[in-house]
């Protein structure tokens, strides 16, 4: 039933009907009518960030930790352009986000009006879809479509650009039911032919591996459950990308750890030597495959993905299965149970023996120290002291992110939020704010680097205003560690601008924002300090002084294959300097 409302009312009504609890936003001239509407209602809570970039990452953190759509609201011009990084981040990691942008009134569009920018033009390549709504009667429908497109199929960010006159204008409201999109109908249920072929191939494997990714998380908790069931039923080893951590328990014995550039030796070697690879919701990204022509040369590959364009993009596969991971796994399990295949137990046993040999290399080992806190040790202690709690972890980008992925183990999906595809420094603090809002009683920790944390440090204010007790655990090495590591590897250790001079005093900075500031620089004090951080009721900025020059290992140098890994304990600094050849140097 159509009801007359103003455009701004339509926005709030549509959000409410979509079940939105929080909007992360920042006001400005072109969104004032919507802000006025926000002021006059109580259903939806507006979280005022301190920069629009923060709003987008907070929406991502909220979305990733709940499986719901995150919502951001920004003004025209600079508000919209500040949102671009977060939109791109959400696109690359397939995070459902709806971003509403204000726009100058329709009659001024194209006039270089004050705070005008071509928002739909700028955001076209960094959204799943976007709309400029020129007629208030199209607004409700467009908003409902926006939510539908953001969350269905392969999720992603969308932008709805709303000119100010449309917000003031009066038009019809329609509810979300019965809105069926004309063209957009992603295929979620798989064809049974490939499902059966996949099951048969899996059953016949002698050296199998499951390689899983963020798609399992995006598919929802059921997908993780089904994955666990299938993996346990087969007894096969499993690894995952950075984005997929938590879909399978990190403490399980079939778990090989993360794979890829900084993945474990056993995971990468098993990928290289396997005879059947089952890719589930993962996209064969270059951080995973290393050198493509040497990627798992002897294996038959099954690829389960909801996005047909991900299949055969980087790696040719033998059995593509297009569909939502949960549906596909459900069908595979059913087929598996009805065929009741006999796996080759003897082959599997010797495969596990081989894997145990690789495990024995202890590729994550590092030189322990009694005098300085090793960053790996800090992550380990943080894990040990928080693992029995209800914890959510976010990260910034750099070495600390990789150490967090290596040493913090996740037993549940949606507990780990990191910027994988885009690698956006400044993601972690706002993402933690989004996650904390969704889970007010939980412990939310941003594992950060000293450089990254400064990129969105202003969001400390947001945490205070909304009583969000997030913890920021800075592995402070005074360097942009990951940049320094690459300079050591590639550029003769000439550390061009990777030392973060003039760092702030993080304790004072924390206090200036109204946070608790802490510092720890000795391994023997670390446990107590972490306990103190956890016990504190409000937000804490923890300046953990770690070894300055530690490198993140193991590592597949750029341009090398999975079986050409560098292991931390075995290589000298000179070898590190020589590890990447001429061809690898041009790569990122």
């Amino acid at each position, binding site marked *: 039933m159509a009801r007359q409302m103003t455009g701004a009312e339509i926005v709030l009504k549509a959000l409410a009907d979509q079940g939105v609890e929080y909007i992360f936003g920042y006001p400005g001239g072109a969104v004032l009518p919507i802000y006025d509407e926000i002021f006059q209602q109580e259903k939806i809570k507006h979280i005022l960030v301190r920069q629009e970039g923060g709003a987008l990452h907070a929406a991502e953190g909220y979305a990733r930790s709940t499986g719901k759509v995150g919502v951001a609201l920004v003004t025209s011009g600079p508000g919209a352009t500040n949102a671009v990084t977060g939109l791109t981040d959400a696109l690359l990691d397939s995070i459902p986000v709806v971003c509403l942008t204000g726009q100058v009134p329709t009659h001024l569009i194209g006039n270089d009006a004050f705070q005008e920018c071509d928002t739909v*033009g700028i955001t*076209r390549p960094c959204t799943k879809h976007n709309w400029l709504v020129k007629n208030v009667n199209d607004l409700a429908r467009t908003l409902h479509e926006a939510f539908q497109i953001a969350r269905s199929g392969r999720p992603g960010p969308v932008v709805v650009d709303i000119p100010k006159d449309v917000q003031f204008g009066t038009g019809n409201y329609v509810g979300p039911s019965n809105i069926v999109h004309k063209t957009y109908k992603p295929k979620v249920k798989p064809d049974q032919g490939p499902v059966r072929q996949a099951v048969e191939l899996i059953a016949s494997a002698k050296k199998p591996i499951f390689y899983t990714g963020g798609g399992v998380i995006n598919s929802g908790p059921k997908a993780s459950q089904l994955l666990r069931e299938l993996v346990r039923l087969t007894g096969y080893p499993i690894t995952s990308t950075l984005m997929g951590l938590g879909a399978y328990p990190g403490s399980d014995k079939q778990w090989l750890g993360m794979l890829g550039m900084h993945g474990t030796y056993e995971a990468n070697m098993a990928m290289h030597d396997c005879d059947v690879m089952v890719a589930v919701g993962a996209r064969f990204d*270059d951080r995973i495959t290393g050198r*493509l*022509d040497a990627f798992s040369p002897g294996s038959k590959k099954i690829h389960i993905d909801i996005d047909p*364009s991900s*299949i055969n993009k980087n790696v040719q596969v033998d059995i593509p299965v297009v569909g939502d991971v949960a549906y596909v796994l459900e069908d595979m399990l059913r087929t598996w149970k009805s065929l009741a295949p006999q796996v080759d137990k003897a082959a599997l046993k010797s495969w596990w023996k081989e894997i145990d040999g690789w495990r024995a290399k202890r590729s994550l080992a590092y030189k322990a120290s009694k005098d300085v806190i090793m960053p790996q040790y800090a992550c380990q202690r943080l894990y040990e002291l928080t693992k029995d709690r209800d914890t959510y972890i976010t990260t910034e980008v750099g070495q600390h992110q990789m150490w967090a992925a290596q040493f913090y183990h996740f037993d549940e999906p949606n507990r780990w939020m990191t910027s994988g595809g885009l690698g956006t420094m400044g993601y972690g603090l706002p993402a933690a704010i989004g996650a904390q809002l969704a889970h007010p009683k939980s412990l939310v920790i941003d594992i950060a680097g000293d450089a990254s944390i400064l990129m969105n440090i202003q969001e400390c204010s947001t945490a205070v205003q909304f009583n969000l007790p997030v913890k920021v655990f800075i592995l402070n090495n005074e360097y942009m560690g990951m940049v320094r590591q690459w300079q050591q590897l590639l550029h003769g250790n000439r550390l061009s601008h990777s030392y973060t001079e003039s760092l702030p005093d993080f304790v004072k900075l924390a206090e200036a924002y109204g946070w608790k500031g802490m510092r720890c620089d000795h391994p023997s004090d670390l446990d107590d300090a972490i306990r103190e951080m956890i016990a504190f009721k409000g937000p804490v900025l923890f300046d953990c002084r770690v070894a300055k020059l530690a490198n993140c290992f193991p590592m597949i140098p750029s*341009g090398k294959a999975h079986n050409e890994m560098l292991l931390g304990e075995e290589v000298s600094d000179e070898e590190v300097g020589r590890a990447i050849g001429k061809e690898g140097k*041009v*790569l990122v």
Partner: protein
Amino acid sequence: MTTPNAQTHYSGPAVRQDAVSRTLSVLVDNEPGVLARVIGLFTARGYNIDSLTVTETEHEKHLSRITIVTRGTPSVIQQIKHQLERMVPVHRVHDLTVEGKAVERELALVKVAGKGDKRIEALRLAEIFRAQVIDTSIEHFVFEITGKPSKIETFINIMTELGLVEVSRSGIAAIGRGPQGM
């Protein structure tokens, strides 16, 4: 023509595949920005466009048909198809070259200026190509020619010698043979 496998930024002994030419017919909702979206996809992902035409074909249903002639290795062509298919306003994508025996036509307007024998020869050849004169003075003709792109190409090449001034081409319109639609 062979191009190295462009799907990876990891160099290495490239997997070489021959590039092929394909005509894709894309049925889209005629919403604002849809052409920019399609073109943006091609530039962002480094695909080729040899020819592109677009117009609304069914007004009531707001449908447009975009005909794209592109070139790439078979795996790139498959990617292009999938990438187009996942765009929200895209209804369907058909590879007319692979689905067989599509009809392809193009229209060109060709301006030729000259006097004397060259002028007479231009007119004689135009007749052979079934090109029509749609504008003329005592020193020029504008010919309208329709046909397969290869025919138009040949006609333009010949006219180059006979005083070709300029050419405007419509790009390719293509449609599958037989009673079914796409």
